[in-house]
C-alpha cells in the first residue's frame, strides 16, 4: 500500500522527463536568478510572486496545476471530484486524501493535522494572511483521520479547489508554526525564513531581499531526486541583467520573467549560452476606459458613477478608439513571440476563449473616422474632433515601464489620426498599483480617461475574475477606493449572468456563461484588450527538465531539473 500513491505521483512527474537515471545530488549546483528578490519564504505573509515561487521549492500544496492548466495530485492521492465522491453532491464539501509516507524535511510524517493547521493559520482573523482569498467561503477544515481532510463551505462551491491548490496555498508544518498564529506570525522569523517543507530543497541560509542558499532534501519522497545537491537563488537587479547572466555570460542557469523588448532578448539569445522559453497564462494587457467623469472640478465625486463621462459614455467613441489600434504592431514592438494580439479580456484557458470579437485584430483608421463622423464628432481646425463644445482630448495613464511607454506613444499617434488628442502620463508602479487612498495617481482612482495595465487571475477558473466588473465593485470614496471595477461598468444583464455562473457546477454551462460575459464586455468596448501576454523565462542550455508553467509556480518541477 505504501508504494501505490508514490507511484502515482512518480508517474505524473516522470511523463515529461526522460533522464530518470539521475541520482539525488549527482548534478551538483544550480543557480537561479529572479530580478525581484524574495523577502520571506512564507507565502501566507507575503503575496509577492517572488516569495511564492521561491517558497515553492520548499513547501508544497495538495495539488498543483501542470503546464496545461490541468490539476495534478501532488501531496494528495488524487483530485477529488463529484464523480469519485471526493466532492459532495450539494457542492458544500470536499474531501482530500493525503498520500501516506510523505515526510517533512525533518523526518516527521506529513499528516492531515498539518493541513488543518495550515487553514487555521491563514484563516486567523488577526494574521493578515495574504492568501485568504483561497479560503473564501470555507466554514471548517477538519481531519477525518490522519490522512483525510474534510473542508466544508458556507455556500455551494462549483469550484471547490481554492484551498491547498497551487503555489499560493501550500501546506506548512504544524510543529514549526504552532506558536505563530495571528499577531505572533511576524515574530517567527526563523520559521518564516526557513520553513520546514516536503519539497525537494531545504533552506540553509536566507538573506531577505538578497540570496537564498538551499540543499537537497534528504527526506524527499523520490529517493533519486532532486538531481541538484545545492541551489542558489539570487535576487535583485533588473530583467536585462538577469537575462544577460543566463543567456550571455552563463553565470546563472535560470532567469525568471524577462520583460524585455523582443529584439533585446533575441540579441541575447544569439550568444548561444541559453534558451528563452515562453508560455501563456491568463495575463492580458488592456486599456480600461473610464465611463465616469474624472474632471478635477467635481471634487469628491470625481471618477464616480454620479457623473457619466462627457464623451467616453458614447459607445461609438470607445469603438473608434479600439478600431484605430493596430494590435499586431504593438505585439511586434513590445512582445514578439512572447505575446499575441487579442480581442478578449478572457483569452485563456483555451476552453473559455471566445472568437466572436476577432474583428478588432485588424486596424481600421478610416472606419473609425467614419464612425466618429456619423456620431457627430466633427473635426476641428486643430485636427481634434468635437461635439457640443466637448472635444476628444484624452488623458492616458499607465505605470512606468519601457514597453508601456512605447505603446502609449504608438497609440497616441494612431488616435491623432482619428482626431483624438492624447496626453500621456506614466506613474511609478509602486504608486500606481499602491492603492494609497491619499494619492491621486492610483489605478483604482482612475483620475484619467484611460488607463493601461495587465491583469490576470490565478488558477483556471474565471468566476472571480469576471466578478470584477459587477455593478457595485467599483472603487469609490465610500469604500476607500478599494474596488476592482476600474471602468465603473454597471449592467444588470451582466450581473445576472454572474449570478447564474455562481450557481452552476456544470463546466459546459460555465464556459458558455464566461464567454457570454467576455463578449458582452467586448461588444460594449468597456475595456480594450491589447495583448495576451506570455511569461518569458530563460534557462541555460545545460539545464534540463525545465517546463515553464504559468498556472502555478515556475519552479513547480524543480525536482526534475538536471544537468545535461
Amino acid at each position, binding site marked *: 500500500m505504501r508504494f501505490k500513491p508514490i507511484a502515482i505521483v512518480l508517474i505524473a512527474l516522470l511523463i515529461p522527463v526522460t533522464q530518470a537515471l539521475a541520482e539525488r545530488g549527482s548534478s551538483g549546483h544550480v543557480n537561479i536568478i529572479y530580478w525581484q528578490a524574495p523577502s520571506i519564504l512564507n507565502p501566507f505573509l507575503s503575496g509577492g510572486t517572488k516569495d511564492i515561487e521561491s517558497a515553492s521549492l520548499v513547501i508544497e500544496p495538495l495539488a498543483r496545476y501542470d503546464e496545461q492548466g490541468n490539476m495534478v495530485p501532488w501531496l494528495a492521492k488524487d483530485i477529488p471530484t463529484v464523480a469519485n465522491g471526493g466532492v459532495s453532491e450539494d457542492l458544500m464539501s470536499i474531501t482530500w486524501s493525503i498520500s501516506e509516507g510523505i515526510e517533512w524535511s525533518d523526518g516527521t510524517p506529513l499528516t492531515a493535522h498539518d493541513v488543518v493547521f495550515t487553514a487555521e493559520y491563514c484563516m486567523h482573523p488577526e494574521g493578515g494572511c495574504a492568501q485568504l482569498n483561497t479560503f473564501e467561503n470555507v466554514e471548517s477544515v477538519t481531519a477525518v483521520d490522519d490522512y483525510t481532510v474534510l473542508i466544508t463551505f458556507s455556500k455551494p462551491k462549483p469550484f471547490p479547489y481554492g484551498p491547498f491548490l497551487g503555489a499560493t496555498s501550500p501546506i506548512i508544518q504544524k510543529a514549526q508554526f504552532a506558536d505563530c498564529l495571528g499577531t505572533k506570525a511576524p515574530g517567527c522569523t526563523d520559521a518564516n525564513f526557513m520553513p520546514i517543507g516536503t519539497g525537494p530543497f531545504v533552506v540553509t541560509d536566507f538573506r531577505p531581499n538578497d540570496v537564498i542558499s538551499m540543499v537537497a532534501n534528504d527526506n524527499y519522497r523520490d529517493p533519486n531526486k532532486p538531481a541538484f545537491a545545492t541551489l542558489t537563488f539570487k535576487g*535583485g537587479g533588473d530583467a*536585462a541583467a538577469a537575462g544577460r547572466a543566463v543567456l550571455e555570460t552563463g553565470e546563472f542557469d535560470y532567469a525568471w520573467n524577462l520583460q524585455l523588448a523582443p529584439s533585446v532578448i533575441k540579441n541575447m539569445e544569439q550568444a548561444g549560452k541559453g534558451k528563452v522559453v515562453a508560455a501563456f497564462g491568463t495575463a492580458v494587457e488592456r486599456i480600461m476606459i473610464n465611463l465616469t467623469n474624472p474632471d478635477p472640478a467635481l471634487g469628491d465625486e470625481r471618477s464616480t458613477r454620479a457623473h457619466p463621462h462627457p464623451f467616453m459614455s458614447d459607445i461609438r467613441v470607445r469603438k473608434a478608439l479600439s478600431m484605430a489600434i493596430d494590435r499586431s504592431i504593438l505585439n511586434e514592438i513590445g512582445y514578439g513571440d512572447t505575446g499575441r494580439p487579442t480581442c478578449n479580456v478572457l483569452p485563456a484557458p483555451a476552453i473559455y476563449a471566445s472568437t466572436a470579437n476577432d474583428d478588432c485584430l485588424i486596424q481600421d483608421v478610416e472606419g473609425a473616422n467614419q464612425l466618429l463622423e456619423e456620431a457627430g464628432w466633427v473635426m476641428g481646425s486643430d485636427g481634434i474632433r468635437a461635439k457640443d463644445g466637448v472635444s476628444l482630448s484624452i488623458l492616458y495613464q499607465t505605470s512606468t515601464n519601457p514597453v508601456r511607454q512605447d505603446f502609449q506613444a504608438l497609440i497616441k499617434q494612431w488616435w491623432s489620426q482619428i482626431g483624438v488628442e492624447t496626453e500621456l502620463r506614466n506613474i511609478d508602479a509602486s504608486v500606481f498599483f*499602491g492603492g494609497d487612498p491619499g494619492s491621486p495617481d492610483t489605478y483604482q482612482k482612475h483620475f484619467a480617461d484611460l488607463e493601461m495595465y495587465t491583469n490576470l487571475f490565478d488558477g483556471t477558473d474565471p468566476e472571480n475574475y469576471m466578478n470584477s466588473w459587477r455593478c457595485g465593485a467599483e472603487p469609490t470614496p465610500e469604500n476607500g477606493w478599494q474596488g476592482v471595477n476600474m471602468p465603473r461598468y454597471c449592467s444588470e444583464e451582466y450581473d445576472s449572468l454572474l449570478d447564474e455562473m455562481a450557481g452552476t457546477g456544470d463546466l459546459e454551462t460555465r464556459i458558455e456563461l464566461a464567454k457570454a460575459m467576455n463578449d458582452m464586455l467586448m461588444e460594449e468596448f468597456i475595456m480594450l484588450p491589447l495583448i495576451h501576454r506570455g511569461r518569458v523565462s530563460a534557462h541555460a542550455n545545460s539545464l534540463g527538465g525545465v517546463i515553464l508553467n504559468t498556472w502555478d509556480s515556475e519552479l513547480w518541477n524543480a525536482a526534475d531539473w538536471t544537468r545535461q
Partner: protein
Amino acid sequence: MFDYTIRRTLLAIPTLLFISLILFLLLDLAPGDPTANLPLTIPPEVKEKIRLSLGLGEPLAIRYLLWLQQFFINEPLHYLTEITGWDLSGDRQRVLSWQSRSPVADVIAQRIPQTLWVVGMSYVVGVLIALPIGIISAYRQYSWFDQVGTFVSMIGFSVPTFFTGVLLIVVFSVELGWFPSIYDTTHVVEDWSSFVFQVKQMIMPTMVLALYNAAQISRFMRASMLDNLNQDFVRTARAKGLRESTVILVHVLRNSMIPVVTVIALGVPTVFGGAIITEQVFKVNGLGQLLITAIQANDIPMVQSLTFVFAILIVAFNLIADILYGVLDPRIRYD
C-alpha cells in the same frame, strides 16, 4: 573646541529627534502602500486585512511613538540581552520590516559587509586618486596632465553610473569574460583563491564608483589649490627658501583642505547609504539596494530606520568636518 564638541553633541540629540519626526511624517505622507507590489489577484479586502495586521490602522502619533520605543529602547535592550545573556528585553517587540517580517537591525547588519567592501573601498580609492590628481592639476595648471584630468573627470560625473556600469559588464563580463557580472554576497574570503575571486567581483563596481567620486573630489581639490597658490603666504614661504615640495604640500595644501574636507565628510555617510544604482547594476545587494527595495515596497519601518541611521551619520560627520576646520585653520572660532 572641546566645549564646542560637547555642546554640538548634546544639541545633536534634539536635532536627530526632530529629523526622525520629519522623516516619519514624510514617509507617512508619501503615496504608496505596502500591498502595492502584491499581484492584482489578491482582492482588496485581503489587502486591507494585511494593512491592519501591519499596524496601519493605528493613528499616526501612536505609530511614531511605537517606532521611537522600538528603536531607542527595545533594540538596545535586545543587544544588551545578546551580549550579557540576561533577559532584559523580554517580550519587547523589535523594529520589524514589513517585507520580510524580520528585525530591521538584523537585515541592516547583514548588508554592511558588502557595502563596506564595495562602496567603502571605492570611496577610499576615489579619495586616494583624487587628491594627487587635484594637487598636480592645480600646480601644473593647463598642462596636458591637467587637461586630460579635466576631461576624464567631466566624463566621470556627467556620464551616469547606470551607463558606465552596464558598459563595463558588457565589455568585461559578456565579451571578455574576465569578471562576474553578479556579485556573490555569500562569498567568504578564506584563502588566496577566494581572495582573488573577491577582488574580481569587486573590481567593476568599485571602479565605477571610484571614478565618480574621484571626479568630484579632484575638481574641488584643484580649485581650492589654485585659490591658494597665488596667496601672499606662499610667496613668503618661497622667499624664506623653503623647498617647493614643502611649500606645496604643507602650506598650500593645508589651507586648501577646507572645501575638500567638507566634500569628503559629506561623502562618508553616503558610503553607508550605499550606491543605489551601482548596487542594482552589479547586484551587490548592499544598503543602497536595501533602501530602494524598501522604498519601492513602502516598507516604512525599514526606510525609517535606515534613513535615520544615515541621519545620525550625516550629523556626526558634519560635526567632524567642523572640528577639522578648526584644526586646519586655527583662526576659525565657533564660540
